[in-house]
């Protein structure tokens, strides 16, 4: 059994600040949507916007980091081992089977994780970014050809649907990442300290 540094300082900074920003965006976003009233519309709106710009800045850094370090490869999807992974969560986990995946520094994410994170990165997040920026700059494009074909409410609907998709993703992600390690909090700890106990070639897989 050895301690392996799985997450660099930047990754952890990125992950946790992104978490805080996304929680804030969800909280203020649903208030703007009219789901509840806590901050008041104006403060919710202004906070939402500040958080959004901060998150965009964070993403610029993160994309740069992924490209320059080559870590983007961690998210290349694969079907190899995907079915056993699904079966494990549907069945094997209850009978104490070992995870059918071995985590290594070069491949941190199991096939199911790769797919889920990729979906977040290329579907949910861009849908939210693009629709959010369109909402923000509505007055600049409503008079153009785009304004003629794209009603404002469609943009709002995409943004809202994206928010729901994000919320669904988050619930699954938090459950798996926080509770399905061995011991149950192992992955949470790894994301905080950067280190995880990997058992040589028989190392446990990690999921989150």
């Amino acid at each position, binding site marked *: 059994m050895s301690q392996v540094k799985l997450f660099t300082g930047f990754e952890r900074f990125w992950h946790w600040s992104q978490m805080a920003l996304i929680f804030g965006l969800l909280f203020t976003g649903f208030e703007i949507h009219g789901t509840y009233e806590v901050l008041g519309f104006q403060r919710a709106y202004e906070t939402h916007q500040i958080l959004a710009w901060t998150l965009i800045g964070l993403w610029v850094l993160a994309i740069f980091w992924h490209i320059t370090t080559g870590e983007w490869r961690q998210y290349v999807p694969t079907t190899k081992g995907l079915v056993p992974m699904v079966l494990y969560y549907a069945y094997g986990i209850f009978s104490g089977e070992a995870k059918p995946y071995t985590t290594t520094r070069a491949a941190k994410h199991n096939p199911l994780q790769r797919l889920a994170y990729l979906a977040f990165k290329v579907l949910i997040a861009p849908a939210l970014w693009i629709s959010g920026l369109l909402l923000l700059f509505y007055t600049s494009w409503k008079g153009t050809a785009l304004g003629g074909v794209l009603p404002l409410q469609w943009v709002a609907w995409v943004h*809202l*649907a994206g928010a729901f998709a994000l919320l669904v993703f988050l619930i699954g992600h938090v459950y798996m990442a926080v509770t399905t390690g061995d011991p149950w909090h192992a992955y949470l700890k790894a994301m905080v300290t950067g280190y995880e106990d990997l058992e040589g070639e028989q190392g446990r897989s990690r999921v989150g």
Partner: protein
Amino acid sequence: MKRFAAHGAWAPVLAACFWLAGIGGAWADQPDAKSTADHSKFEELAGPFATGPDVTRACLQCHTEAAEQVHKSIHWTWNLDQPQTGQRLGKRWVVNNYCLSLTANYARCTSCHVGYGWKDSSFDFSSQENVDCLVCHDTTGTYVKFPTGAGHPPYEDTPFAGKVIKAPDLVQVAQKVGKTSRRSCGACHFKGGGGEAVKHGDMDSSLTDPPKSLDVHMAPDGLDYSCSTCHEFKSHEQAGSRYLMKAKSESGVSLPGQESNRPACESCHGQSPHKAGVGDKLNTHVDKVACQTCHIPEFARGGKATKMFWDWSTAGRLDPQGKAVVEKQGDLVVYDGKKGTFQWGENLVPEYHWFDGNVRYTLLGETIDPGDRTELNKLSGGYDDPKARIWPFKVMRGRQPYDKGNDILVVGHLFGKDDAAFWKTFDWDKAVKAGMEEAKRVGQTTADYSGEYGFADTLMYWPLTHMVAPKDQALGCAECHSKDGRLATLTGFYMPGRDSNPWIDRIGWLLVLATLAGVLLHGLVRLVTRKRQA
């Protein structure tokens, strides 16, 4: 007088003094300390003056062009040919749901005409001496026009409605003329509809001396604007009219020497009046939301109730002596046998509509649907109209006589000493007949009265633009951006916080709950099975 006639150059100098001094405006009710002319030293104004026209003749000896200028103004013509709709508007032609129409009620209504003697349709609109200079230029506050005097002041103390109306000292008034003021304009405009605060909802005598909280522009301890600060006059013609509004001014601040777009707010405040803040969101509202919408949070805010409802159909109740019954709630008349039933309101939330500045009136002769509430003035504009913005309105609702045979609005002969006058004999049939005959005679309609009248529900929109509150009282976002906010009924466009697609919400929350239930169940099963294995 000859002395002055020989020095005609004085006239423009005096006129210029009037104009320049208007910008300061702090001297509303004082003779102009800054003026280069002391009117009390003019022999022409030494008097005595028997009548108003006598005063006017004296004024015209120096202000040689003044009467002709006034003749071109809507204050004199009560006529406006609306270029966008092609309608002939103005007080002479429109029908409202207060006292219905000028027609057949001249001498009462024209107590607010800037002239003398419009007591019937034969009034000579080319008469110079019949221009009333004093009603606008009085600074003493003592000049009044007698309510039923066709524009004349009382020339001796005269009783009216239980009070004595004092005859003004015309010499005194003439010698102290000066610029117009909130009080002089207000003498008529604060009492539109026949009494204090009745008509507009955003104009009443609380604006004579308003605190800043009531009106940031006109408060004497603030900017102390007079009406003409924004409603600039050029050659006695004012800028701005309810009949032809600038609902969306696209020009910036009006600098001296440039074409002025006053009285639009933008003429001073420009197109980006707010601090940018986060995302400059307030300024990006300017294209769709009128300044007034947020900055006039309520109307009738000055402590005076405005009339909100007027039902003519209940008029006619008389006491055993044959006098009209009057019922009051506090100070407010809620029933008057001469006029019917009233409702009043104070500190009211406006109604909001898209408005491009054009109003199409339902004029006399146009068919109405008596089963529906008739809009006496229809607002033009909509969400897709780039010239329209959301505006606040007082909406006056009422029930008024109409011609049941022809389904058209009617005018009523209310005021008069003859048998047909409703306020004399309380006979609608006679009053409507006489009103419609007069309307036909003056060209207000070509329709004849069918002989059968009824009562129809009507409403009228009054755009709100005065009583601008301090900025900390401006509406917050959620006043509109919420489910049951102020714009709840202004549908047809998407607004965040108010509108949503219910299916996205339903499916979205269903998926969220299903996921939550799924992970809880998954976790629970794991707990149970783990214990069993242990």
